[in-house]
């Protein structure tokens, strides 16, 4: 979920009369529930609403975008047409030096704005919201906005060796080197990691070699500071995925158009063979084209004679045409609607829609919608306008038989048997610590290796979590340690999975069902453990034999492995005093650990 701040007053003023005076919070709440959004909180000022939107609806992340959604739902506006006027006036040349750094940009110009302070705040808020969510903290996509009047065309997007970069960034008084920006500047420090391991950093510079910005970090103070006096803006998005950059750019441009601006395209020249090749530009462009399959975009994407160079005229703000069959609506949501009804509901969800035939609808998806991949997405919008509450729940009439996994039935029988013997079942975690699973048992960490003896975990939030358990009983010992103050005797058991490396499996490991119990009380011996084990095997009618074993965690002469049909299925014995001490325990304890997957298999034979 993405949370956005919306001023209820400004929202109402965008809705216009009569809603501006009559629309109340509960009306909004009801609409949002149908659409799948939610008012999370109303701030103390009584006006700022914290609204949760689903992460697929980027277009609703701005006040204007949100207002578009509500207006359409109220039937106030049918979809607006957006357009980016084509012009060759604005050109950005992309240099091959960016190949391995931040290869792509898509850009736009919006003119004729009359911005108020509050609009500027809104623009920055949306920019940051898009950075934080869709842009993956600027990693996937960074947006820069500049006053058009400061720029001399064409712009060059290139990478420069970092020690050659020097400019005055936004929020600084004087020139700073790239190194200074990344180590001293407030914004620079936050995003410095995005450029680490690079010796050259990306830059937008204009024809007079003024630095516009150093993406994805920050803008320059001279060319990158937008004020209310600026009516014309240049917008760029930089990153690694052409389609994603275009998606974000459309969001910003549509919002600026809603604020009263007029959009113009910017020509971006990818002339370098090296860059095209290494950054998969051809592949990106073909994916981009296929995503816009319904639009004729030949004039937007031109390939030069040299096969690997392209000129892109973006953004494309035209609506995308689709057709939808009413039968498909019935198949998905179980409601019979005619083409007119479908159109009615689609208009509530910002589409332009007309009945083509009795059972076919022609519809246009507005450019800011980034969540329409398939007919099902359109039908889902029909559903939201129709309202989910009107769908009748019915039980499917499909005859099938139910069944449990045999191993789970077996585990349940064993669980009950142990509970009847007075044991308390516990559930410990599957992720654990090497210290507990090996070292505290007297198994040196040098003697075990990842992917052979255990499955390791990469970086984790908790340093004591670094592997998947390979046995249960150390977890039970830890549990007993945390329950030292509870009166004796302690009789606990667990049935759960352990993970063992297995290179024959696609996941290089396998789940194995294990069982372990521990009894802790004064005067316990091997006999107390064996009694239980004998009881269990008698219960399942399995013949077993016992062979003395020597392991670091059990007392020698008081421990054995259990053999069923010639296979070792587990072990039991008195826990060695050293192990008790390493877990902070002082009470004599016995344990047993069994491979239940194996026992279950042997039971079937």
């Amino acid at each position, binding site marked *: 979920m993405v949370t956005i701040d919306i001023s209820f007053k400004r929202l109402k003023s965008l809705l216009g009369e009569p809603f501006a005076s009559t629309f109340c919070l509960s009306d909004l709440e009801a609409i949002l529930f149908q659409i799948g959004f939610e008012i999370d909180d109303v701030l103390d000022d009584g006006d700022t609403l914290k609204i949760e939107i689903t992460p697929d609806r980027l277009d609703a992340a701005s006040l204007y975008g949100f207002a578009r959604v509500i207006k359409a739902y109220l039937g106030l506006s049918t979809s607006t047409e957006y357009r980016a006027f084509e012009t060759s006036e604005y050109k950005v040349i992309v240099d091959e030096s960016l190949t391995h750094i931040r290869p792509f940009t898509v850009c736009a110009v919006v003119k004729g704005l009359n911005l108020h302070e509050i609009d500027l705040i809104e623009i920055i808020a949306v920019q940051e919201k898009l950075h934080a969510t869709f842009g993956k903290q600027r990693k996937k996509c960074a947006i820069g906005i500049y006053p058009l009047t400061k720029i001399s065309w064409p712009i060059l997007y290139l990478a420069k060796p970092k020690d050659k970069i020097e400019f005055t960034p936004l929020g600084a008084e004087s020139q700073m080197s790239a190194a200074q920006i990344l180590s001293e500047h407030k914004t620079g420090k936050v995003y410095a990691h995005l450029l680490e391991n690079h010796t050259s950093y990306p830059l937008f510079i204009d024809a007079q070699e003024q630095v516009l910005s150093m993406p994805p970090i920050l803008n320059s103070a001279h060319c990158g500071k937008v004020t209310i006096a600026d009516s014309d803006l240049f917008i760029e998005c930089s990153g690694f995925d052409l389609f994603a950059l275009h998606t974000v750019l459309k969001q910003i441009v549509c919002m600026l158009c809603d604020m009263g601006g007029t959009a113009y395209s910017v020509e971006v020249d990818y002339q370098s063979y090296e860059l095209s090749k290494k950054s998969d530009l051809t592949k990106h462009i073909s*994916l981009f084209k296929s995503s816009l399959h319904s639009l004729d975009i030949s004039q937007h994407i031109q390939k030069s004679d040299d096969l690997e160079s392209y000129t892109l005229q973006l953004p494309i703000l035209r609506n995308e045409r689709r057709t939808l069959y009413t039968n498909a609506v019935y198949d998905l949501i179980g409601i019979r609607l005619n083409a007119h009804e479908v159109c009615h509901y689609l208009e509530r969800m910002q589409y332009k829609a007309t009945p083509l035939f009795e059972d076919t609808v022609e519809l246009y998806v507005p450019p800011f919608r980034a969540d329409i991949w398939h007919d099902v997405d359109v039908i889902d919008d029909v559903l939201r306008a129709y309202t989910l509450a009107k769908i009748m729940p019915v039980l499917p009439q499909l005859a099938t038989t139910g069944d449990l996994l045999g191993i789970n039935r077996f585990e349940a029988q064993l669980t009950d048997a142990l509970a009847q013997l007075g044991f308390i079942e516990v559930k410990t975690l599957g992720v654990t610590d090497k210290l507990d699973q090996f070292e505290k048992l007297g198994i040196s960490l040098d003697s075990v290796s990842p992917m052979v003896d255990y499955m390791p975990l990469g970086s984790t939030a908790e340093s004591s979590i670094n592997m998947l358990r390979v046995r249960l009983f150390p977890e039970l010992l830890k549990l007993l340690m945390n329950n030292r103050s509870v009166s004796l005797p302690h009789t606990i058991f667990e049935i759960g999975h352990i993970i063992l490396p297995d290179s024959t499996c696609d996941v290089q490991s396998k789940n194995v069902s294990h069982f372990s119990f521990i009894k802790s009380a004064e005067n316990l011996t091997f006999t107390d453990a064996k009694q239980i084990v004998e009881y269990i095997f008698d219960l399942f009618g399995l013949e077993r034999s016992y062979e003395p074993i020597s392991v670091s965690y059990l007392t020698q002469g008081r421990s054995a492995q259990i053999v069923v049909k010639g296979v070792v299925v587990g072990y039991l014995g008195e826990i060695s005093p050293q192990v008790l001490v390493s877990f902070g325990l002082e009470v004599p304890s016995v344990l047993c650990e069994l491979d239940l997957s194996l026992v279950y298999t042997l039971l079937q034979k």
Partner: protein
Amino acid sequence: MAGRKKVPSSDLAINLQSHPTYQHSLAHNINLEKNNIPLNPEFDSLILALHDYERILLDIFVEFSERKSPLTLDSLNKHIELELDSLLCTRNFDSVMASRAYQWLSNKNIILVSYHKYQVVSLGVNGQTYAKKSLPEIRMITELQNAKRLAQSQLLNLGFNQQEIGVCLGLFKKLGLATVSKSESGEVTLEISLAGKSFSPQTYLQQQFLELSFPLQLDSLTESQKQVLEELKKRQDIVILETKQEPKISLTDFGFKLLQYYAKKLESGALVQYKNSLTKEDIRQYALIAKQTVQQFHQPHLPLQQNVTSSHMQTPSFVLRPFDVTSRVPSVFAGRIHPMTAIMRMIRDIFVEMGFSEMQGPWVETAFWCMDSMWIPQDHPARDVQDTFYLNQIGLLPNAKLVSQIKDVHETGGKSGSKGYSYIWNPQKAAELILRTHTTATTFRTLAKVGNNEGKPLKKFYIGKVFRNEAIDATHLPEFYQVEGFIMGEGLHLGHLLGVIKEFYAKLGFTNIKFKPTYNPYTEPSIEAYYYDERRKKWMELINSGIFRPESLAPYGITQPVIAWGLGLERLAMLMLEQNKLKDIIGTSTDLKWMRTYKVPRRNELKSSLNASQNNHADFEVQN
């Protein structure tokens, strides 16, 4: 020993029996009015049911009642108030026994228990030290009287700590015993004043106070002592003030009458002997009686054994003390299944009732099965390192054909009728090993295996662990149990999804539910299902659900619609167990005390559901 030849059978009573005071009280004739007390069956049965502890108290009361003559209830209660504690002490009657006896006797309206609250003053750690070696201000002024001037460093050398120096500085200023100045080096220095020179430690009230014998009741202090106490309270760990409460016992009118009756019986030796529990010998007595009865029946000519009279034939020579069946008993601890196991069984039952069979899958997964297989894009937030456990190892991708179909469906939509995500899908990213973040990984392993299931319907469910790379605290664990079910079948649509969820909720006992649209990358529509929690008076979300997207199914050749839903088991457990601390239930911090006593979660009785109404109707027809 006239009245009590047989003694109570508990260990305690046997110990007390040998106590001289006890013997004396029983041997002594009690000085009650000699008028005959008529038989009182109510009193008899009350006396018979007395526990050893209660008898001991009554015996003490009898002993008090012998002290003065003529005795009234008031004077008896005066004795109880003044002497009960010390008498109980001499009988090794500890406070737990006493409080149980008080509780039982007051339940029977024999005594009245009220609680007297009072404050007790005792010495803290510092107080105890200063009581022995004097308060620091006394020691310091004595040093000053000798040295006239002392700098802070000298004081430290003399064994005063910083805190003590601070306290003394303040006190000396206030009392004018010394002047404080700073030396040239800036060091705090004390110089004794005239008053200081003539200060006599013997007259220092604070010190006198410390030398009282503690603990003391606050009420017993004089006004001036209380003032001193107030000052000492401000200093660290010198005095401790605690509130205590003490039961105050008095006999009721009813109790007094009973006591008189009891004493009379005691005197006359008419108290019935009783036993707390049967012994083998006792039971043999019954056997003997039974045998003789039978013998007499078959051989009436034989004489009865001498010690068995006909009246004894129905009653052996002992009485089992009747218990107060309403009184509390010590807890027993038995073996128990884990509450999550109980809830999992409940869920398994529900699924099997609805015709579902169980799936299983591994904890360690390739990103492929956990994400890519169901059309979660490779840059989806769910794949972020901070949320997912990565093993930093590579697993194997499935067959090349499936991999290429997955690649197509991500990039261009493949044959699913979708536009696709229009990004370049990276097979290396799909091969990364992770701990599965949701059980849908297992669902898709199953779907890949069964494909379109030859057009036949399929219902599957799974309960398994999922993992989230999260720091552990009271309510957050890095693992959860997830429940997941899906139905594949021709003609399934949203109404069926809602119907199945409604049924599922009804089987859990939740009937007031509502649905809200949401977003999931692999389902469309996606639906959150809330139920109204009557106890918490709010809507709670438990189930997330949807219809699998065509993009999610197309690579496996599945053309039948598939509806699916899932829920977190911990959430349900919190609701059913009324236990908010996950850490107390799951993991090595599990609280065994809680585990010994938790209330077993039960499935709410089916109230109403789509099925129930149909079934009820059917039953009705059968009956006709």
